[in-house]
Structures are given as structure tokens and as C-alpha cells.
């Protein structure tokens, strides 16, 4: 039962342990569109929230192999077609000599894949977000731990959700406006 003008609810916690416990309880309560925010990765959170493994390795594999294949293709084309030149009596496609550059191109592709995959999966860069309207949220990157529940979750209800968050031991619960987002 989404409400207009409300993005969701935000609750603040003092310790990683409290955040972990709260995430577990919110998930048990049946919420799906919720997220935890912490200044460093809190391990065990992905299990408590029921998150799947990150598919970043797939990006790295595809782009890494693509980079290596592209590197070898480039050298093959340059050496046999674009500028065929016999050096030391070797065949035009002396692939052994092309391995170092192929390897470096593969690493480059894999690294670009890791970063591009990270950005794409996180939906970053995104410089505006309703959460940034909260003054308390500024300590997310310092020493406080937050749990946010989005209004688009079908279980979201202004009163019962805020009550649940307070019961979880949150020191501070607030409603976040959608801010035209």
C-alpha cells in the first residue's frame, strides 16, 4: 500500500550487531524492498537480508576473455594483414611473441569489467537519492548504521512499519519523503 510523497522509512542503529539483528527481523516480517547502510561491509548482512551472490565475476570473465581475444586478434591482423613484415625469419603469425600483449589486454578487460559491473549492478553513479535528504543519514559513512524500508514494499504502512523499526531497538526512526524522485 504505497503512499504518495513518501519514499520510505529510515531507522538508525548504533552497532553492526543491532543492524544485523534488525535486518533479520525485518526480513522475517515479510519485507522485501529494504536495505541496510553501514560505513563498512558488515559480514553476515547479505545472509540476514537474503541477498544473492554478486554477479560481478561474470562481467570480469566476459570482458577479460574478450580483452584477451581482442588483443590477440589485433596483433594477428596487424602482423599478417595490415603490415606484414618478416622478422628474424619467423612466420607472420608468430603467436608466441604475442602472448604478453594478449595477457595485458585480458587483464585490462577484466579490470574494466570489474568496475563496470560494480557500477552497473549498484546503479551508480546516482548523485540524487531521497535518503540524502535525511540529516542523520550523513553519519552512515562515519559510525552509524541504518536500515531503510521503501514505501513501494507491499507491506509498507506508515504506522506499523515505523512501529516495527522502533521495536527493533532503533534510536531514531524517520519518514523519508520522495522529493519528486
Amino acid at each position, binding site marked *: 500500500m504505497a503512499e504518495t510523497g513518501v519514499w520510505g522509512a529510515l531507522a538508525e542503529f*548504533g*552497532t*553492526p*550487531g543491532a*543492524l544485523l*539483528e534488525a535486518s533479520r527481523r525485518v526480513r522475517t516480517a515479510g519485507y522485501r524492498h529494504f*536495505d*541496510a*547502510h*553501514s*560505513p*563498512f*561491509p*558488515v559480514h*553476515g*548482512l*547479505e545472509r540476514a*537480508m537474503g*541477498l544473492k551472490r*554478486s554477479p*560481478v*565475476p561474470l562481467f*570480469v570473465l566476459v570482458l577479460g576473455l574478450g580483452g584477451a581475444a581482442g588483443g590477440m586478434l*589485433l*596483433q594477428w591482423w*596487424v*602482423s599478417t594483414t*595490415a*603490415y606484414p*613484415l618478416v*622478422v628474424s625469419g619467423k612466420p607472420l603469425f*608468430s603467436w608466441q*611473441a604475442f602472448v*604478453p*600483449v594478449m*595477457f*595485458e*589486454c585480458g*587483464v*585490462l578487460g*577484466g*579490470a*574494466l569489467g*570489474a*568496475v563496470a559491473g*560494480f*557500477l552497473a*549492478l*549498484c546503479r*551508480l*553513479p*546516482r*548523485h*540524487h*537519492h531521497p535518503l540524502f535528504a535525511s540529516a542523520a543519514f550523513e*553519519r*552512515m*559513512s*562515519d*559510525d552509524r548504521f541504518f536500515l531503510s524500508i521503501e514505501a513501494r514494499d507491499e507491506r509498507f504502512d506508515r504506522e506499523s512499519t515505523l512501529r516495527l523499526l522502533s521495536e527493533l531497538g532503533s534510536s531514531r526512526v524517520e519518514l523519508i519523503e520522495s522529493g519528486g524522485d
Partner: protein
Amino acid sequence: MAVAEIPRDPRAGVIPDVDPVEYRPSLVTGNPGFHGVTEAVARPVEWQPPIGWYAVLAVSLSMLGLFGVAIAWLMWEGVGIWGNQVPVAWGWPIVNFVFWVGIGHAGTLISAVLFLVRQRWRTSINRAAEAMTLFAVACALTFPGIHTGRPWLDYWMMPVPNQMAMWPQFRSPLMWDVFAVSIYGLVSLLFWYLGLIPDLATMRDRAKSRARQLAYGLFALGWRGSARHWLHYERSYLLLAGLATPLVLSVHSVVSFDFAVSQLPGWHTTIFPPYFVAGAIFSGLAMVITLMVVCRVAFRLEHLVTLLHFDRMAKLILATGSMVGLAYATEFFIAWYSGNQYELFAFLNRASGPYAWAYWIMVSCNVLSPQLFWWKRARTSIPILFAVSILVNIGMWFERFVIVITSQHRDFLPSMWDYFVPTFWDVATLLGSFGLFFTLFTLFVRFVPMVAMSELKGVLPEAHAHGVGPDAHPGRLAGAGHG
């Protein structure tokens, strides 16, 4: 666990407190807490820098100016301003190039290799070491760029279509070098930046002025510390570390191929790749120690970068320094065992010829001086660490000097023998490259958090969601979690 069970180092004070959760020496002393870490790291970036910072910047900038003058004169006059002359066609520019690339190896070693083998003490120093890597690679890339004599034609090294319909020769190690070093620089930049994103978000959230909010906010990309963000972040970071590790080993191997693939006695040996990689890590660690000894005092980070970190780095210096020593000895053994008179002559000439002084500076700085680190007292003494790190930096520059110059200066025909002497502009270019390096590093410590805050918070005892129980050490429990 009970307090009594925590093993205490008999030399308490040398090794800091014990972490109550992980049961190993604490990585930071005095239990600063999450907020304390943020404050300590953000202070140098947010406060008015000390007067010494301006002094260092002024000196670095004037050296950078010298670099500019040296390069401008080079472009105007040509490579004749340097001492490069047949038979020593590769003079100081290549010495400096290999020196800087080598320095640029420790950052990735500390960041990637120590990350993969779960050496968590890397956390306090990896950011600065990665920055150092980037700046050293920037210095290194300058030299091949300018020593071609016509830097405006450097694009010939890239496989780009051009009006001459010419393409690079991919069978040449010099071409591999272009790819290896430039890709290494790029991947190091990505690795450094990915690690920086959460900390830039911290700086954004703490920013008071609009300009800072915009600048840090732009680069923080809208990071919200979400569990989903962290999930992908950690996976990407791990994979980048996994990619950077073989990369760092390949880069200096490829640099060594520049020499090893040639036919010159003294260069043409199969030991070069591992020998160069060990030497590169050795020199880079020395530079990290040199920089961190100064930075931790100047910016009051003694409790985050502790003697424990220096102790561990000194052990790595001892290990890699001894490997380098073994490589020097092996070269002589092979020169004798090969029965090749040219090879034997090249090495005897190195140790007893006209450049013997350089050879023995190299051996005493690189092999003898790190042996002090067998003693714990030396590994935890800041003056000794600093002195040895400087000696190693000098020794490693001389190693490249010995390899490059002594192998060339006595050609196969005695009529070709010569004694290489650097010119004023050789020295100016070397000093100038230090100017570039220190200018970049000085700006880095002023504008970028020089310790990885988010990672450091993750290794504090309070960060363990389950670890700190009611029976843990009471003194460390202020603000600690439950659950």
C-alpha cells in the same frame, strides 16, 4: 574468552594491544572506535595543513619546475643534451624509468597480494601505497615518452591507423612494455579509485563548504553504503586484486624482457624476470616506509600506522632484499658456469671495472643494509627504518645504473670502450622526476583520505557483529555491539 587467556607479548609496548576477537595483535592502538578513525583520517584533509606541508610543496614544485625546464630544453635541443652516446645508448632515462616502475610495484603488492593472502595489517597503509604506485608509474611513463627524442610522435607506439599506414612491431619487448606499463597504470588507477569511493562518501558527508560537497560528492558517485553496494563492491575489489596480482608480476617481467631478450652479455639472462620483480617489490616497500615514517608523524596517525606495520614491512624488505642478493650471486655463478668468456668478462668488469664503485654501493645498500632487520629492535626503530629505506632507495637506483650502464660501456671491440658520464641535464631530469612524484604525493595527502577508513573500521574489534561478548576485555568494550 577470558582476559587471562589473551597472550601478552613479553615486550609489550613494542607490539601493541591484543584484539579480543581475532586473538592477534591489534592493528590499531588505543581503540579509537569508528568515529575516532574517521576523525583521525579526515583531519589532514579538512584542517589547515601544517606549515611543513607548504614547505614540502614548495620544494617539490620547484623540482617539478626543473623537470619542466629539462624537458623543454630536451625538446628544443634534442637527446644530445644527455650523456647517452654509443656504446651507452641507453643512459639515465632508462635507468630512471626502471627505477620508477620498480617503486610503483609495492603499492599493488600491498593492496592486492596482501589482500588475497588475508594480511589485514595492509589496511592502514594500502591507500598511501597505491597512491605512491600511481605517482611512480606517472614518473616512469614520462621517461620512455621523452627519451624517444620526438615526444610528439609517441602515438606511433599505439596501434592506431595513421597516414603512413604503419603499424607497431608486436614481436618487440619494447612494444610489450608500452602495453604492460600503461595498462598497469590504468588498472592501478581503477583499483585505487574503487577503494576510495566509500571514503570519498565520508568526505562528502562531512563537507561543510559547497565546493567540497560538490567535489567529493561528484567522485563519491552517490555511494549510500548499502548492503547491496557493499556486496558488489567487495566482489569487484577481490576480483581486481586477483587481476592485479598476475599483472604486477607480469609488468616488471616485461620490463626485464627489454634487457633479457637482447643479445648483450649482462642483459641476456633468464634470471631477469624474477630478479626484477623481487627488486621492484623491495624498492617499492622501501619507498612506502620512507613516506609513511614522515606522514604518520606529520599528520598524527601514529595509532593507525603502528610499529606493527613497520615490523611487517621490514620483514618483507629483508626477504626481498635477500632474494635480490641471491640473484646477484646467481648471476656470477652462471657467468662462470656458462663458460662464456663474454658473459664472465661482463660480470668481472661490473665488480672490478671502472664502475666497481657503483656495483659495491648497490651491494652494500641492497644486500647488507637490510640484514639489520633480522633484529626486532631494528624493525621497530623509526630512525633505523628510515635510514635503511633511504639506503635501499639509493641502492635500487644504482642497481639499474649498474645493469644499464656497465653492460653497455665495454662493447665487444675494445676500440668501442667508453666511460659514461651523466650531464647536468641528466641529473636535472632525475631530480625533476622526484619533483613530480613528491608534488603529486603532497597534494594527495592534502585532498584525499590517506588511510582507507572503511576498511580500517572493518578490522576494529567492534566491527564484528557477533564477536564482542560480555566476557571480553572490558576496557575495549566502550560502544561495542551486542548480538
